[in-house]
């Protein structure tokens, strides 16, 4: 790849491709949320699954801005499917932070990638933030559609102190996702010659 540090059209297309896969896998993992007990766990599960495309993505582009754009796109997509504006904000913020961390290792140092994916995964907190920041409004709007029992259970599982716990879980998910992604990369993609 040429020594140009700016994002070229080819890189932008790659960003689009991996954002699409990331989003589809994320959405598929979200389906676990049908069972309320899993909702707090989604922050852990989603980044683990999404680590696979993300680690492959990181071998393809390696330029500053890639993770930020992914974050912005994921935020926009989630906003379009009705998750509120908070996801866009966290998408931009944690996309940029993750990007900066990975940039510090030139997108090659494993430690910076590991940490970067952990931080980037925190964009998912935009989903949970609704449950805490606008707590009463959020749960009130759910009562009719989902039933009082569902809301009570969900509220029972998520008292205020669980917010930091979720952030930690989310971060751990990002770290595990990076590890899984690297394992899959070694096992499959490098052998097939596409990484």
């Amino acid at each position, binding site marked *: 790849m040429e020594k140009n540090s700016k*994002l*070229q*059209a*080819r890189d*932008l*297309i*790659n*960003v*689009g*491709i991996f*954002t*699409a*896969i990331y*989003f*589809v*896998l994320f959405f598929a993992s979200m389906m676990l*949320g*049908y*069972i*309320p007990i899993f909702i707090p766990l989604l922050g852990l599960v989603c980044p683990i*699954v999404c680590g*696979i*495309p993300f680690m*492959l993505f990181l071998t393809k582009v390696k330029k500053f*801005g890639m993770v930020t*754009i992914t974050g*912005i*796109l994921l935020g*926009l*997509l989630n*906003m*379009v*499917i*009705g*998750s*509120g504006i908070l996801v866009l904000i966290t998408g931009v913020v944690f996309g940029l932070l993750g990007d900066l961390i990975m940039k510090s290792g030139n997108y090659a140092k494993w430690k910076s990638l590991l940490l970067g994916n952990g931080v980037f995964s925190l964009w998912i907190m935009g989903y949970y933030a*609704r449950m805490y920041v606008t707590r009463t409004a*959020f749960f*009130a*709007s*759910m009562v*009719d*559609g*989902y*039933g009082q*029992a*569902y809301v009570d*259970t969900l509220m029972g599982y998520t008292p205020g102190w669980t917010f930091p716990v979720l952030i930690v879980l989310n971060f751990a998910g990002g770290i595990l996702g990076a590890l899984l992604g690297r394992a*899959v990369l070694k096992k*499959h*993609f490098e052998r*097939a010659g*596409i990484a």
Partner: protein
Amino acid sequence: MTAATADVPFERKSIIPIDPRTKIFLTVTVSTIMCTGGTSGVMVLIRPVLMAVPMVFLLLQKKWKNVIRFSCTYAVLFAAELFLMPMLFGAWSFILGAAIGIYTHMLPGFIMGYYLIESTTVSEFVAAMERMHISQKIVIPMSVVFRLFPTIGEEYAAIRDAMRLRGITDFREPVKMIEYRVVPLMMSIANIGEELSAAALTKGLGGPEKRTNICSIGFGSLDALMFLAALGCWVGYAV
């Protein structure tokens, strides 16, 4: 290209002439209000309308098969809520209630998103985003995402069939289940991506010159009407 889209002008798939930007706004409106809106007051009126709107659009787009499929889903959901729910109690009613709730909340936005992708060509989408003066850095990846969703669906269906032949179908082995689906999917999408970049670069994407576009997009009276209606819903949502 199917017969349903043959009678519309080149580079346009939408049968009724509404702007892609209007479609995006309507999708955000339907999904956000349906997912997070309340269910009392004016919302009693707004909700059924927003449920009906995506179906009407699909009908206008002549997607008969999908109209029938989504109608059946709705029918099953409502039947379950009316007849099955009173018979259940405890954990079961709670799980079923939640599932029905999630479905009826998400489905309208999902159908609207499906209509958006189904009725808009990538060129139109790019033209619309350029009109909004969005940076190329967002427009290019976004149009790729837009273009790839249907492809990912097709590829996944093919992989699922292949795995069914090999008998990898249940969640008794969750790791295998995920690995044997996600890995081939990513392999094929990565290859498709390579081809897509080559094709796009050939068409002058990323060149120094500003690209031209033959899509005639723009707001008409129909768009104004849609915007007004959607704004009405937002007002109802806010109060």
